[in-house]
């Protein structure tokens, strides 16, 4: 029989089969491959099969079954091959991205590689992505960074540039970090600002994705009664993917990805690929954020060390000065009394001496010289007194009354009422009156700075074992731990030692005299400054 198709011939001429194209010339001489690759699909072969059946060939009934089965298997193989190819590409891409994510401690680098991977054609090829991160106090998810074009023109321009550049994904990410990250951070400012969501809002789609630990594909958002339409309006698309970022059960944030320009559907495969990618991204983001915070802490520690060294040097200097002051004061004291006796009696004698007495001149000289020496001594004593504390027993309540009296103007100006609750019959405290008075006034001024007009400042004195406790409580803004530490940091403002050193000097003064200063801030508002003053003599 003369067959229409070429299947029966070992070798054929090119014109014998119209289905063999350029580059497939080897099929002309390979009968087996020609049958498998071309003839089974060829309409001429189907005609030949029909003729076989008409001619009563015994296998002509069976051959179509085999042929159909073969074609189905071939199609399946093709699909699997294509799937494998795409997965191989994805693994290669994930490996490239993963390497950076695993090693980088730089938050900007992590952000750049993650967001580039999501939006680049060589990555997941989404048009646009937003990264939202959990804030430091872990109360809100906040918009952090948006990447992608704002409109079609920008998209076209960017994609053309990328197409020309032939960069690898890593190079693209580096280029993005170097040239675009800063501008992208502000580009979607308006959208990012509207994406803040409390972590406690369990019904919100971000929290639902985080709780379920699974991405959520939102479709037809504007007509979906289960969804907040606001989010779709903010994003300007009604189809988007919400990808949770979770690392070791910690909620790191959320990525929103969409195809706002091409409106290409987001497939199940897109979702699965992004889900695989989300884990290393979450982990890298957490690690980079922690590293950034660690760096901040290290910097703080370093600066604290510098301040501490300054303080130590200053203390040594002050101690030396105090010693000088003490010695000077002691000498001046021992001279003062004899000088007073000499000068005093000279004046007495002068008073009784007749006007023509020859000795008057001598006596006048003694009086004059003594006066001069006393003036010098006064200066020396005044100076030495400023160098070391002059401690004595004082009634603290009296001190409070007087100091607060001096602050009446400041209290009035701040519109603050002062309530004194002073315990009666308190033992005397051994203090340097001027220095403790300074401390009380400084603390009051610090408290007033946090208070609103109409507030109340309460000052209490109570007996506390072998000391007296002076508590100054305000109803102003509660100080944070950092603010408290800054306030009493050793010589926080060393350059301003003297007036205005504030609580750091108070703390130093009090501790040098064996007393203490503590600050407690109430979470709801208000702070209490407690000074504990000793009543014992031997502690000085």
């Amino acid at each position, binding site marked *: 029989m003369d067959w229409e198709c070429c299947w029966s011939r070992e070798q054929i001429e090119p014109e014998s089969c119209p289905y063999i194209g350029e580059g497939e010339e080897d099929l002309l001489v390979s009968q087996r491959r020609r049958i498998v690759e071309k003839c089974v699909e060829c309409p001429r072969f189907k005609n030949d099969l029909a003729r076989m059946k008409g001619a009563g060939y015994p296998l002509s009934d069976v051959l179509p079954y085999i042929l159909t089965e073969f074609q189905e298997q071939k199609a399946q193989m093709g699909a699997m091959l294509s799937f494998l190819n795409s997965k191989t590409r994805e693994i290669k891409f994930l490996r490239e991205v993963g390497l950076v994510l695993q090693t980088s401690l730089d938050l900007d680098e992590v952000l750049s590689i993650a967001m580039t991977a999501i939006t680049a054609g060589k990555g997941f090829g989404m048009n646009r992505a937003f990264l939202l991160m959990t804030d430091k106090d872990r109360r809100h998810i906040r918009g952090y960074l948006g990447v992608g074009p704002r409109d079609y023109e920008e998209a076209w321009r960017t994609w053309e540039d990328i197409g020309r550049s032939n960069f690898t994904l890593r190079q693209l990410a580096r280029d993005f970090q170097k040239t675009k990250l800063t501008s992208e951070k502000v580009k979607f400012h308006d959208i990012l600002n509207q994406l803040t969501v409390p972590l406690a809002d369990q019904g919100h789609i971000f929290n639902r994705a985080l709780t379920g630990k699974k991405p959520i594909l939102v479709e037809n958002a504007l007509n979906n009664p289960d969804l907040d339409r606001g989010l779709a309006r903010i994003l300007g698309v009604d189809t988007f993917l919400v990808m949770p970022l979770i690392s070791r059960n910690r909620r790191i944030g959320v990525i929103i990805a969409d195809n706002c320009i091409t409106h290409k559907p987001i497939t199940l495969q897109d979702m699965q690929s992004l889900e695989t990618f989300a884990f290393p991204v979450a982990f890298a983001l957490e690690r980079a954020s922690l590293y950034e915070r660690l760096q901040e802490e290290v910097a703080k520690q370093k600066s604290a060390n510098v301040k501490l060294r300054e303080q130590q040097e200053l203390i040594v200097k002050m101690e030396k000065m105090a010693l000088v002051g003490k010695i000077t004061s002691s000498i001046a004291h021992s001279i003062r009394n004899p000088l007073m006796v000499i000068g005093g009696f000279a004046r007495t004698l002068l008073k009784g001496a007749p006007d023509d007495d020859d000795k008057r001149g001598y006596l006048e000289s003694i009086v004059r010289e003594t006066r001069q020496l*006393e003036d010098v001594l006064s200066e020396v004593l005044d100076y030495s007194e400023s160098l070391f504390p002059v401690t004595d027993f004082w009634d603290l309540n*009296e001190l409070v009354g007087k100091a607060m009296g001096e602050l009446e103007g400041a209290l009035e100006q701040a519109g603050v009422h002062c309530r004194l609750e002073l315990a009666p019959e308190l033992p005397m405290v051994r203090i340097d009156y001027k220095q403790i008075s300074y401390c009380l006034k400084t603390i009051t001024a610090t408290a007033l700075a946090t208070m609103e007009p109409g507030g109340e400042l309460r000052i209490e004195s109570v007996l506390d074992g072998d000391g007296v406790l002076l508590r100054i409580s305000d109803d102003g803004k509660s100080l944070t731990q950092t603010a408290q530490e800054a306030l009493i940091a050793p010589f926080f403002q060393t350059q301003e030692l003297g007036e205005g050193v504030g609580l750091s000097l108070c703390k130093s003064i009090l501790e040098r005299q064996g007393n203490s200063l503590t600050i407690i801030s109430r979470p709801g508002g208000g702070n209490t400054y407690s000074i504990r003053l000793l009543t014992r003599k031997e502690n000085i």
Partner: protein
Amino acid sequence: MAKLLVVDDEANIRLLYSQELSDEGYQVVTAGSALEAVEKLESESFDLAVIDIKLKNESGIELLQRIVKERHTIPVILCTAFSCYKDDFSAWLADGYVVKSSDLQELKDEIARVLAKRQRGAYV
């Protein structure tokens, strides 16, 4: 004649005070320590006490506290070498304050002022 109690641990200074204040027409009794002063205060009555802050054993401030506590209505003038106390004493327990000097004029003026105030009934 107003009767003054002068408390200072330096004998020569007590002598100087006695001399000078007697010349001013006051009756002067001296004490060399806080303890001696307290004994005299309990046995005699005075119109005014002049006390040095720096005394041996018990300080002048402590003596002043004791006088106030034990309800002696006697006015007190404190004497010290430290001028810095002056600011703190202006409205303090003591009625007057002077920086020690060989020129006793300031002390004499202060005594006259305090006694005049007492006479007007401020301490009754």
